[in-house]
């Protein structure tokens, strides 16, 4: 794919926003979709402490924060119109977005607006959250068919919640505990087959033998699906093996891993293996899919993932319906 076509595609997909962003990432950088720089190690003062919910004022701002928190934790219930799968925001941001090394919201808030290689322009937080809906929440298959519109009430509420949790954090600073704590790729790579065994031993009890998760009769999610139609789609950050390994290492199995103490329950190798196994299954299509798995892979999947790979005799990237 040429630089020109990438540029045009981005422009077409994102409209005028790019015009305001100024500067375009080199095509090779865009294809490589560089990883986030690691956040600093936690010092003696500990992690940022979000304020207590009980300190919220009883006014319009407090109400917005409460609504934002509800939409974040029970996304299907309070923003279900824009959710095409069975996920909630808090599946990947544990503790309602409060937990260090679990992509805490207080870590993200101070660094936006921010340039992102994923879409090659400066993103506001409003747009960043829409990105989560587009990919992790698979908005394309939702009732609305798209993420919440810019500046819509649910996005205002979620941003109010984020702002509240970041109270006192230094603006523009990358805080310890931000994002997921990276796990170096093991020397010998990873093995989907070994990951299968890790999955059955460590994950299946909650997420099901077939990654389908668990849902109540009324559709309420109990344990999230990891693949299939109720999972994040092929464009979500979690489909990258390195990202999933980082999340899993310090957050899963729930209650065994200790994100605040930055202690994993699995070895680095197990985290990579099981991340690869989980991401070696079909899930909703990448919303940027242009009719060809190979071309979509070339444009958007030049990173550590299994899109467009053949695993167990199956060409991945076909999507599910």
């Amino acid at each position, binding site marked *: 794919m040429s630089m020109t076509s990438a540029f045009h595609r981005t422009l077409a997909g994102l409209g005028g926003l790019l015009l305001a962003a100024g500067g375009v990432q080199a095509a090779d950088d865009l294809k490589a979709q560089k990883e986030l720089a690691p956040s600093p190690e936690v010092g003696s003062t500990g992690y940022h402490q979000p304020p207590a919910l009980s300190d919220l004022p009883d006014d319009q701002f407090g109400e917005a924060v409460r609504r934002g928190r509800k939409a974040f934790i029970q996304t299907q219930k309070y923003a279900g119109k824009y959710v095409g799968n069975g996920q909630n925001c808090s599946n990947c941001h*544990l*503790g*309602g977005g*409060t*937990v260090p090394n679990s992509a805490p919201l207080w870590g993200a808030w101070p660094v936006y607006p921010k340039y992102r290689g994923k879409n090659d322009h400066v993103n506001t937080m409003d747009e960043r959250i829409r990105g989560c809906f587009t990919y992790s929440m698979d908005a394309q298959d939702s009732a609305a068919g798209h993420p919440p519109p810019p500046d819509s009430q649910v996005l205002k509420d979620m941003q109010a919640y984020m702002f509240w949790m970041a109270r006192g954090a230094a603006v523009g600073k990358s805080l310890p505990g931000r994002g997921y704590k990276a796990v170096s790729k093991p020397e010998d790579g990873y093995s989907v087959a070994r990951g299968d065994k890790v999955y059955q*031993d*460590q994950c299946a*009890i*909650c997420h099901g033998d077939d990654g389908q998760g*668990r849902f*109540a*009769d*009324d559709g*309420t999610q*109990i*344990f999230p699906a990891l693949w299939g139609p109720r999972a994040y789609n092929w464009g979500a950050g979690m489909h990258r093996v390195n990202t999933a390994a980082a999340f899993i290492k310090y957050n899963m*199995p*729930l*209650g*065994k*891993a*200790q*994100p*605040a*103490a930055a*202690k994993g329950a699995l070895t680095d190798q197990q985290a990579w293996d099981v991340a690869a196994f989980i991401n070696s299954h079909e899930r909703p299509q990448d919303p940027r899919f242009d009719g060809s798995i190979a071309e979509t892979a070339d444009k958007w999947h030049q990173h550590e993932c299994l899109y467009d790979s053949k695993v167990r005799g199956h060409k991945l990237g076909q999507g599910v319906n």
Partner: protein
Amino acid sequence: MASISAGRVLAGLGLLALPLCAPAADLGATIAKQGNGEGATACATCHGADGSGQGAAGFPRLAGLPQAYLAKQLRSFGDGSRANATMKPIANALSAKEIKAVAAYYGGMEPPAKAPGAAGASAERKAAGEAIAKRGLWAKDVPACTKCHGPDGRGVGDNFPPLAGQHASYIRNQIDAWQSDKRSNDPNQLMSGVAQRLSSDEAAAVAAYFASLPAEPTDQ
């Protein structure tokens, strides 16, 4: 509403299937009421004819707990992964068939409509317990109890038993048992680490909160 009607349909199917299970149900009822005559005493003596247990003595509610969960606990008393001097000889005196039957008997019982209650606990303590139950204590890496034990702690599947409608004394004792390695039968050691990280006050607060909830939601 959807879940209630689905539950009724299932209950209906269960009734239809009952004659096939009758011998096992009879065996379970007999053991529960009279013991098995080979060393296993009547369960009802301590756990009550209605399976509601006795909070003052720390005997748990059994009524309505998942059958597979109950059967596993009996096997655990037998193999020592739940160290309990009272239950060990009883469990050892039951055959595999009897364990299954008695688990089915109590599992099939309606749980008591009323919450066991936490009379000794202050409102502050119950509120602290509710906060831990619903939001966790992430500063020390304790997830919300409801993440695995289900919304309002009503249990999920065979591996995550209900906490709502259980006696505070029993919940408290179990957290102590995990902390002191007297209980190690949790699948994949999912509970032991969480229990280790709870302080005595936190454990008491969580126990008081769940005991203040009825086993099943009350109809409004």
